């Protein structure tokens, strides 16, 4: 709950930043969305499919479209409607299939991730120094100052995530081995769920670890990226419940958000311009909340890092444990 409170507090003071991050996703996605729109327009042409697609979805048309689809057109599918969009990505995150999309989309995604890496310096600087100057200039300077080291950490993260996904492949292979003669789906589901949970946890551990390393850099405790990695790891190991717990609280909120969106978001509808705008706004609001949750995680981890440092300082001053790591 403390993590939540921290997130809400920090969020309140950084709404513009949050909206900026959301707008970034909008700006990056818009040109490709226009390309998709153009492709759809061309495919629908002057046909009456126009009416069926306005009212709902036309599976007959989609079969034709999918057969002729090239490049990013292949990502147009009925399951991206409504909550399916978020579920598709959540599943792809878990399985690593995010990187098996069309190369253009992955390329843009990687560029976006690099942009995020760049912006993260400013975001963490603001979170780590809540009482500091809150100008755009300082934000930009922080982005620039931390980017090279953050980039190094992103590279390291990439290697670690790759390792997690490779291990996931191995683990799922073992699950297949263990369940070869299991005849009940319930049992296989439970084992598979446990395996995927382990994969998710491993991804989260890497994320939390390297986020703590970044916070360490921003806080100025460790000037070098590798030292920060070591330091971030120490914080994670000493406060696993607090740090991972903070992430998991937000992950649970995210799961709730996605579930809610799955229930309320129109899948194939609506048919009117007003309805379309409303559906778009609902989707964007969901995305904004998702970003806010991500923001909350960063705030909570920054706070936890600060507390860990404070504890160590106190331990050092009282001669207790922790001396060696500070």
């Amino acid at each position: 709950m403390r993590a939540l409170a921290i997130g809400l507090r920090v969020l309140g003071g950084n709404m513009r930043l949050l909206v900026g991050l959301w707008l970034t996703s909008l700006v990056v996605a818009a040109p490709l969305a226009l390309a998709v729109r153009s492709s759809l327009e061309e495919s629908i042409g002057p046909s009456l499919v126009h009416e069926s697609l306005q009212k709902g979805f036309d599976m007959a048309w989609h079969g034709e479209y999918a057969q002729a689809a090239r490049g990013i057109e292949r990502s147009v599918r009925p399951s991206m409607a409504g909550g399916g969009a978020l579920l598709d990505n959540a599943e792809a995150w878990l399985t690593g299939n995010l990187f098996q999309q069309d190369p253009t989309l992955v390329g843009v995604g990687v560029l976006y991730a690099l942009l995020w890496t760049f912006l993260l310096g400013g975001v963490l600087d603001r979170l780590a120094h809540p009482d500091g100057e809150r100008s755009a200039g300082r934000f930009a300077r922080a982005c620039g100052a931390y980017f090279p080291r953050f980039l190094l950490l992103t590279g390291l993260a990439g290697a670690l995530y790759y390792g997690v996904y490779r291990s996931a492949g191995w683990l799922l292979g073992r699950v297949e081995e263990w369940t070869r003669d299991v005849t009940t789906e319930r049992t296989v589901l439970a084992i598979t769920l446990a395996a995927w949970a382990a994969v998710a946890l491993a991804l989260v551990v890497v994320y939390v670890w390297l986020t703590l390393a970044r916070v360490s850099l921003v806080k100025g405790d460790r000037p070098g990226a590798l030292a920060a990695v070591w330091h971030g790891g120490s914080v994670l190991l000493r406060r696993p419940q607090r740090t991972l717990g903070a992430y998991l609280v937000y992950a649970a909120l995210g799961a709730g958000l996605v579930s809610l969106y799955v229930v309320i978001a129109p899948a194939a509808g609506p048919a009117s311009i007003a309805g379309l705008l409303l559906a778009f706004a609902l989707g964007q609001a969901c995305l904004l909340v998702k970003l806010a949750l991500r923001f909350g995680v960063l705030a909570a981890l920054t706070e936890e890092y600060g507390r860990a440092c404070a504890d160590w300082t106190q331990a050092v001053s009282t001669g207790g444990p922790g001396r060696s790591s500070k």
Partner: protein
Amino acid sequence: MRLLAIVATLLGACVPFAAADELALSPRNASYRIDVRLDAAARTLEGRETVTWRNIQETPTRELWFHLYWNAWRNDRSTWLLEDRARERAGGPAKEIRDEDWGWIEVDSVAFSGVALARRYAPDDGNPEDRTVLVVELPEEIAPGESVAVDLAFRAKIPRTFARTGFRGDFFFLAQWFPKLGVYEAGGWNCLPFHAATEFYSDYGEYRVAMTVPEGFVLGATGRETARSANSDGTTTYTHEQADVHDFAWTTSPDYLVREGRFEEPGLPPVDLHLLIQPEHAGQAERHLAAARAALLHYGTWYGPYPYGHVTFIDPAYGSGAGGMEYPTLFTCGTRLFAPQENDQPESVTIHEAGHQFWYGIVGNDEFEHAWLDEGLNTFSTVRALDTAYPASRRFVRRYLPEPGRGRGRGRAGFLPLVFQDIEVPRFIDRLDRYRDAAGSDDPSTPTFRYRPETAADITYSKTMLWLGTLERELGWDVLQKILATFFERYAFRHPEPEDFFAVAEEVAGQDLSWFFDQVYRSAVTFDYAVGRVASIPVEPRGFVEQDGKLVLADRPQGDDDSAGAERRWRSEVVVERRGDGTFPVDVLLVFEDGEERRERWDGQARHTTYVCEAKSKLRHAIVDPQRKLLLDLDRTNDSRLREPEPDLPATKWASKWMLWFQDFLVTIAFFA
């Protein structure tokens, strides 16, 4: 000859297990008495069988040809596995086969009256390493009308499931498990090696099979249980008997729950329903029973009654790969732990496999060469029965939380379903999508076993379903139903050929349909009609016109809209094109802005045709084949054309949904930053 005549006489005097007063529905010329024992721990079978065969052809033979289907999985040089590997590789890396997964069947002896008979493997497909056909040489010719009985002893290792047959844990599904005769036809023995793209073909007969399994195992099998005995060695022997069938399959597992039901409808014979279901699916038992009843009702009403009085259906173990297969008086369906009602599982597979009791079980066509005759007719019937008995199908994906080892690449399956309630999916659409990808791959008249393995099912199931649907829409259901019912009645318990079906169709329809069958069956032509152009212009001419013998400039029409008043008339023009090679008569519907509709009929022969008409208002749109009779049309989108394309709201709508997905994709990928 004398010896065999004696045998024939003896056989006639003591028909082994058919009740003498029972009216035979079929020739019953290939009958089996089998004793088999399952060693569940070793996963082996050991059996003895007596095969009684009567020559019902007009030529003699001195050979008996047997299928040894399980040798398809003896090693990776069999015809079946060579073809299956090719098919799998087309969709990604082939599934690994481990040492324990292989299966085989060995015939230890074949004897006639105690005298061993010579035998040899007889692959006739150029693959000398295939061991799925065994030829037994008889000491004398079997003349037409004569019978012979031979005794075989065999052993088999049960494979991990291939082609719906095998084991998973202590679940066993055992099909094509015994040495089974091919079909002796006018041209000789029809006993092809086991091919990956085909199923089975056998003569009708009487079966009496005693199956010994470990105590506590529940057993389901073709036929009715006629005896059960507990043995002193901790096993139980179940005996099942059935006449007028052409195969025998069985299953056993300690886990099955048994649920009984009954089908009773006025005008149709009652049927006992015997369901073996997995405990975790017990809550879905009624859905299975209801689907089986729906199949028996609709197929029975449309085509003819189900004559056996009982049917056993199996919900196989998870991951066993045994689901969705038909055997006489027994079939496997299959469901999942989470099976939303909006999806057709288990209803679709249950109706389809129950339907095979009619198309395959009763009408026993050669599935090696003409698989479309049962699979296609049955797929069409399944879709029709589902549409009749169940609400519209909804878009459904089962992808979330991927399953280990189930499906590869984009076909990877998941545990968790998601139903898109507002996306309706006409049931034929899935078939059309499959056919579209395979449209040119094979002429359906090619023997099925020669189809390209990776597209064989699309031609066999989907194309046939689509052309039957087209025929229904063209001739009317009443006519098509009569065609199918006549075909069913005429060829029940026989082995019809495609030409038999076409002859019945033309006879009942009262017209020459060869133009249609030539295209959909004897060729791989594709169909695509399109509205190429629509336009409306004022009737009043522009430019110079004759008036009082002089050329004068016509009054300029007042604008292009309808504001000029009720007197204004419009000349509309519609160009309809045939873009595919196939031809089919189609309607062309012209819809005007004031709601008026005009319908034209085009024989669809030329490459294009133009309709010109005058009306009080401008044309709004034109549609070729407005009732969608031609289900084989590969591009439905170009079948219609608006004169003035409306604002592009649909493209914006779906692009905005895509945009949200992609924004979320970006935010998700940023996790890794």
